[in-house]
């Protein structure tokens, strides 16, 4: 051991084909013990197939799945130390909450007192003690979700799979459950493998996000990495709102990339990626990273523009600013409603920190 966290799951070069359709294409990654990993992507990107392969519900066409050092590729779901929270919760309707939670423990051959102890402990932990003798149809959506979580945690799995478990909850409850889930994950120290198409959910809860598209990994990193330093156009557009700027590289200077955009010279950052001079590239600039000024600021990265629309959105105001004649030369900026009011004239200057303008790899 080198003091690093242990690998709990190794997805070893896994490919899954359904007929001629490639659902997952040579996925190779390690998941560390205690991590909250989210697989994020649009429907059909292969995230659910990956989850189902980890659960044992699909067999990889190629590659291996190694769980805690043991190759489980060909093991059926009932033999794996992996449990799952299903999208529709899949609670057994004819069993009470207590019986649902005990189910996995019974099948593991635990003794009656042990089952009782563990079940009571989990119901307490998830604030479900009062619901022990109710059946699932007597519970609210949020309670059902917690029962599903308790049931999956009961056998003490090495990996917990969560398949869009918040999809069925209303927006208000979802926010609350996100915090709860993150908290439960921290307190249990379990490895969570979460699958969602909701970028906000992913950003809120995860230690690490894997963005998938068309069966391949687009980017794998922390929520901050993905948000501020997207590597591809897909990631930049999929997570949050952004301005995409098409320019030509003039040169690279230390960490800065100098772009020609509409004849203007602007500065961005490659974050380790160094494009060659003359290359046509796309760069991403988050809406909240655009600063607006009444007068020309003392900043290298300042461009003059004209406000073409101004939309009040409550906590913030969104400004569309035209800085050139080309199609892509409208920059959208988010501002404090108060600050936006200070912008008196339609003519203004915008600027940004060079490291906030991320030059994308493709």
């Amino acid at each position, binding site marked *: 051991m080198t003091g690093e966290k242990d690998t709990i799951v190794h997805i070893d070069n896994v490919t899954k084909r359904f007929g001629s359709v490639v659902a997952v294409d040579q996925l190779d990654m390690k998941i560390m013990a205690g991590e909250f990993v989210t697989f994020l992507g649009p429907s059909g990107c292969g995230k659910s197939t990956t989850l189902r392969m980890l*659960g044992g519900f699909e067999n990889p066409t190629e590659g291996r799945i190694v769980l805690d050092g043991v190759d489980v590729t060909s093991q059926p779901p009932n033999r794996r130390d*992996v449990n799952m929270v299903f999208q529709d919760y899949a609670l057994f309707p004819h069993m009470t909450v207590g019986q649902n939670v005990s189910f996995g423990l019974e099948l593991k051959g635990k003794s009656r007192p042990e089952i009782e102890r563990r079940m009571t402990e989990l119901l307490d932990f998830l604030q479900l003690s009062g619901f022990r003798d109710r059946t699932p149809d007597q519970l609210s959506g949020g309670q059902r979700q917690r029962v599903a979580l308790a049931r999956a945690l009961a056998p003490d799995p090495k990996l917990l799979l969560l398949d869009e478990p918040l999809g069925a909850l209303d927006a208000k409850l979802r926010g609350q459950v996100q915090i709860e889930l993150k908290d439960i994950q921290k307190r249990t120290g379990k490895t969570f493998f979460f699958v969602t198409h909701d970028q906000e959910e992913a950003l809120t809860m995860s230690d690490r996000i894997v963005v998938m598209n068309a069966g391949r990994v687009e980017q794998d990193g922390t929520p901050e990495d993905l948000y501020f330093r997207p590597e591809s156009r897909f990631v930049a557009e999929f997570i949050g709102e952004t301005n995409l700027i098409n320019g030509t590289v003039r040169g690279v200077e230390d960490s800065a990339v100098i772009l020609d955009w509409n004849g203007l010279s602007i500065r961005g950052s490659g974050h380790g990626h160094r494009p060659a001079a003359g290359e046509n590239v796309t760069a991403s600039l988050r809406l909240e990273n655009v600063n607006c000024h009444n007068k020309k600021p003392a900043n290298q990265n300042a461009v003059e523009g004209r406000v073409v629309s101004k939309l009040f959105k409550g906590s913030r105001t969104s400004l569309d600013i035209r800085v050139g004649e080309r199609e892509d030369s409208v920059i959208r900026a988010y501002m404090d409603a108060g600050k936006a009011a200070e912008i008196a004239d339609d003519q203004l200057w915008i600027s940004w920190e060079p490291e906030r303008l991320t030059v994308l790899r493709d």
Partner: protein
Amino acid sequence: MTRNTRILMSVIYWAFIVYLFVPLALMVTMGFKDSKFIGFPIRSWTLDWYATVIQDTEVLSVFGYSMTIAIATTILSLIIGTWVAVFLGPNQFRGKAIIFALACLPAVIPGIISAIALRIFARLIDIEPGMFAIILGHTVHNVPFVALVVMARLSTQPKSHIEAARDLGADSIVAFFRVTLPYLKPALIGAGIFCMLLSFDDFVRAFFLGGYQPTLPVLIFAKLRSGMSPEINAISTIVLIMTAILGLWAERSMRRLNKGS
């Protein structure tokens, strides 16, 4: 809907109700008539016919015989029908439509044809006419109904239920008995009651496949031939009330179970 069609519809409806219930009401009424002859006018009333039925050991033993056949048929039909439904279940495979059609065929073959065929077959494989042969005949006829009802219910079970059971450590057999079978309970109760009634009510198959011991419908038929007596009305009324109670109870408990899931 115009006013006139509404009136017409309700007239037709009530005419149907009258047509349905008047014969039943007549039959029940005649069972209380203090005379050997069926028909109006009724001069005096009596419960004697019911007393006769209850004391008639032949009627009682035939009733028991019919019940035994019905219960055995139901158990066999439920087991085989459920097996067929699960086997045909959600998976697609070659020849599924043919197997399904074959399994359903006994439900649509005319009773008289299948009765004669079964009689010949029973003789061929040396099964004595009697209880066992009748049970086999009824089971063949009932299995399609069970299979259809169970398949309908099975198709509403979310796939994730079975996956969740597998995920929590159940192999496919344990998952079936602990998760799928309880889910099928309302369908099994409904199909079971239906089997009981079908078997209890059957005349043609029982007549062809039976031995010396008659089933209740066969006994009533025999009694009819020796002359209509209010005793038959009394027997029929008892059967009517029992089956109505059974049917209503089944309907109620199915609705309750369906709501619970």
